[in-house]
């Protein structure tokens, strides 16, 4: 409910900001009062008098800036209009120019505007009402369609790859390798991974042009898809693995008695039972992809700027908070249909009511294990590429030496470790709350998955701004902001892992325990926690890794006062890509440590004992 409330609050704030016109009525009170009743000529006269009388240079500059912008939006400024709004010399305006000035004043003085929302469908206000922009200026609708296609393709491919990896994880012989691959991928910041793919594409273009020409060279859409899937498939694979381990073994044994082979059992037993997790994870991947812009911008074609690229433009190059809020809203709206579809899929499937003995012992077909291995290798490709380049390149080795000797890098590692532990604990705790809720009120899970998906669709920039605003309002001390923000940051993916597992647990267990007189605390301690432990452990690990790999939250919420690796890398990478190559050397072990942790967590062992 808290997550849903936070999403609703941010969406409402975005809507208010998108409708806010940042009116300059307080700078031009007399003109604002006259605009409703004066004709265009009279309005120009009132405006000229008021501008001429404005003595404060900042006020004058705000008026000039806003009005020249409004006039440039509707066509050429022209010398008469330019001297009118810059020097208050409006006497030379003809009637058409006075009408343009009146329209510009209307646009600048209104307290609210529909302009930013209309812009989302390439509509623009004109004196006659809203009109569609000409093709040479209409960029939002094509960008939205392109972004949706991109996100759909990534969600479909990531689901396929993630499902294969997650189900293959049941085969004990390949599990450590698969975990290693997945966690290396999760431990690679997207900034670094993108540069890794870029290096690989360049290398292929130079030394294996025939391979590059089939869609793996720079500027290829296949490369963009492959790179994005390599980054996001783990957030499908881990929840699927958690759910697959709870598929009742008895179902497999029954199917086996019916003569079903390993592959047939994957399709008739496993996939139907993990289907809700696949839906939820696909929705999460879709939502996350709509916010990607570095991968398409760096690896894709010049014309392939995604929606998030437009957002970046409106927050830095041409600051326009209204436009940025409208695009953020659009990102959430784009993800909403898939979130609702995932919710419907969760609601439509009945819980399985058998004993909770997991099916890990059943294993998985050899072919699937191979497919899973190949898929998990995908996520390690960028780091390996960067490593090879660092080993071969003298300049990159020098950067590595500089990085290793930088005291700020060491501070960033220490701080990241601390915040990662706090965030992991926070996520596990929040996950536990959800688990308890799910045990008592299963329908709430559906609301949570929708909220989680929409939360993921919110641009990090917006989420960070929301956290800062909340912290200022609540007087929250700065050191607490980061652990709190990161605990929630990784929660959606952690929840996907939890859903899969909880849905496959037998509700009669709780009833039986209650009949035996178990209270809430005993239920929690002896049933809920042990059963949810693997999923909680996965959620906590993902939270810890996201602290090390995310950039926007550390940049906004902490900066140098509490330097995290995401902040550190971002500040260095802006100047020199060689830093990404050097960082790869330091990050690869981190992935393996995480995989080792995942493998050896006491929580996982306890779950095995429970079985």
């Amino acid at each position: 409910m808290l997550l849903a409330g936070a999403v609703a609050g941010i969406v409402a704030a975005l809507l208010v900001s998108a409708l806010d016109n940042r009116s300059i009525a307080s700078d031009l009170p007399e003109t604002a009062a006259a605009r409703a009743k004066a004709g265009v000529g009279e309005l120009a006269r009132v405006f000229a008098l008021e501008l001429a009388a404005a003595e404060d240079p900042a006020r004058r500059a705000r008026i000039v800036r806003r009005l020249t912008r409004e006039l440039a939006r509707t066509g050429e400024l022209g010398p008469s209009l330019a001297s009118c709004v810059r020097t208050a010399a409006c006497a030379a305006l003809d009637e058409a120019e006075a009408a343009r000035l009146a329209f510009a004043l209307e646009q600048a003085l209104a307290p609210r505007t529909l302009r930013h929302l209309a812009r989302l469908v390439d509509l623009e206000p004109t004196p006659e009402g809203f009109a569609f922009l000409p093709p040479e200026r209409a960029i939002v609708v094509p960008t939205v369609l392109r972004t949706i296609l991109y996100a759909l393709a990534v969600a479909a491919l990531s689901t396929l790859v993630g499902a294969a990896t997650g189900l293959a994880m049941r085969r004990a012989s390949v599990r450590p390798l698969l975990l290693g691959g997945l966690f290396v991928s999760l431990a690679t910041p997207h900034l670094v991974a993108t540069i890794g793919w870029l290096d690989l594409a360049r290398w292929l273009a130079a030394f294996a042009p025939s391979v590059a020409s089939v869609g793996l060279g720079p500027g290829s859409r296949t490369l963009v898809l492959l790179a994005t899937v390599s980054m996001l498939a783990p957030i499908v694979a881990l929840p699927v693995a958690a759910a697959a381990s709870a598929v009742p073994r008895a179902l497999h044994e029954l199917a086996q008695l019916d003569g079903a082979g390993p592959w047939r059992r994957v399709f008739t037993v496993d996939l139907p039972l993990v289907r809700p997790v696949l839906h939820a994870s696909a929705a999460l991947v879709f939502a996350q992809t709509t916010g990607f812009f570095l991968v398409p911008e760096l690896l894709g074609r010049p014309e392939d700027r995604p929606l998030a690229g437009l957002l970046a433009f409106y927050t830095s190059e041409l600051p326009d908070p209204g436009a940025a809020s409208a695009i953020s809203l659009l990102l959430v709206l784009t993800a909403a249909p898939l979130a609702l579809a995932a919710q419907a899929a969760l609601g439509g499937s009945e819980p399985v009511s058998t004993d909770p003995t997991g099916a890990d012992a059943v294993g998985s077909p050899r072919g699937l294990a191979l497919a899973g291995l190949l898929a998990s290798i995908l996520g390690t490709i960028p780091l390996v590429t960067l490593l090879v380049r660092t080993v071969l390149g003298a300049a990159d080795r020098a950067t590595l030496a500089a990085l290793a000797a930088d005291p700020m890098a060491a501070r960033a590692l220490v701080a990241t470790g601390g915040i990662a532990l706090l965030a992991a604990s926070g996520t596990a705790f929040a996950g536990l709350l959800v688990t308890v809720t799910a045990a008592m009120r299963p329908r709430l899970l559906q609301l949570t998955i929708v909220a989680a998906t929409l939360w993921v669709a919110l641009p990090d920039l917006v989420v960070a701004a929301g956290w800062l605003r909340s912290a200022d309002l609540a007087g929250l001390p700065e050191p607490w902001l980061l652990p709190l923000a990161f605990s929630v940051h990784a929660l959606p993916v952690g929840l996907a892992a939890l859903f899969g597992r909880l849905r496959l647990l037998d509700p009669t267990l709780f009833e039986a325990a209650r009949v035996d007189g178990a209270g809430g605390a005993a239920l929690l301690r002896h049933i809920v926690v042990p059963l949810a432990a693997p999923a909680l452990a996965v959620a906590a690990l993902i939270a810890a890794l996201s602290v090390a790999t995310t950039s926007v939250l550390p940049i906004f919420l902490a900066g140098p006062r509490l330097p995290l690796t995401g902040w550190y890398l971002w500040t260095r990478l802006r100047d020199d890509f060689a830093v990404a190559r050097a960082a790869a050397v330091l990050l690869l072990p981190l992935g393996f440590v995480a995989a080792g942790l995942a493998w050896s967590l006491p929580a996982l062992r306890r779950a095995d004992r429970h079985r």
Partner: protein
Amino acid sequence: MVRNLVAVAVVAAALAMPVGAAELTIVSWGGATQDAHRAAYFEPFAASTGIRVLEDSWSSEIARLEAAARARPPRWDVVQVNAATVRTACEDGLLEPIEEHFRALEADLVPGALQRCGVGSSVGATVLAWRTDRFPSGAPKRLADFWDVQRFPGPRGLRKSPRVTLEWALLADGVPREELYTTLATEAGVERALRKLDAIRPHVAVWWFPFAQSIDILLDGQVVMTPAPNGRVLKAVRSQNAPLGIVWDHQAQNMDYWAVVRGSANRKAALDFISFASRPEPMRRFVETIFFGPTLRVVAENLPPEVRRWLPTAPENASTAFFVDPDFWGTYGARLEERFQAWLGG
């Protein structure tokens, strides 16, 4: 165990937090520029005053400046801003008006360096960078050579942004410098610029996005010519002995400023820092490290010739230079970005 983990986490986070009372958070551009700022300004200032300098980096994302300024107390104290931000953020009340405090400095600064909310710190430039090992028969010397694929064959790089790109297209097409922005303000001017870009488009192998990429694609040999920031080109030449050259013709100059975030709890220390950074000796050290143009006349006049020849502001390099007009881009930026993006997709 969980209790122990939390304890470890709190201790680690606390260890990473800076300690001490007197602090000043200064925000620069990251990378080589910030390295040069640190060596020339931050460290000597900290050593001479005992004030601890904390650093952050940004890329003119106004949302970050707003977030930093609206926090209580503000998260940043001193910030590097470009010519557009020093005006707009000042008008929007995000920066402190400091012009009067530094009025006495005005006569020592180059024109335009003292603004209502900022003191000019350096002049950088976007220049045409090229691979010196690719054209043995003669070096490109003019901006128009970027379009001359007969004499200077090889793939080109261009920034995925209309800024400077459209200006260069018009200048290469023969528009005089003094008519540049009045031409670009008209539909006919924009069409003319895009037609000129059409001519080179088939030869553009990389449309780059972050500035770091501009040097990366040159060093990797993906392109033989591209616009790039002069400081990064020279850093690659000096630190890696990279075979890169600069065409100074029609370099696009921009000035950076020091500004104080509105409501800074360390306003006095912030002003002291800007005073320190506006002294000749630290500025000379900065210029000699990164080869940006100084804003103090006395520094520009007294630099050794081997440094001066690499500066965008040196008279021999600046004869055809132009300043990127922040007012023009503030007015027409949205419209031109849409046109440029639609052109890229066409």
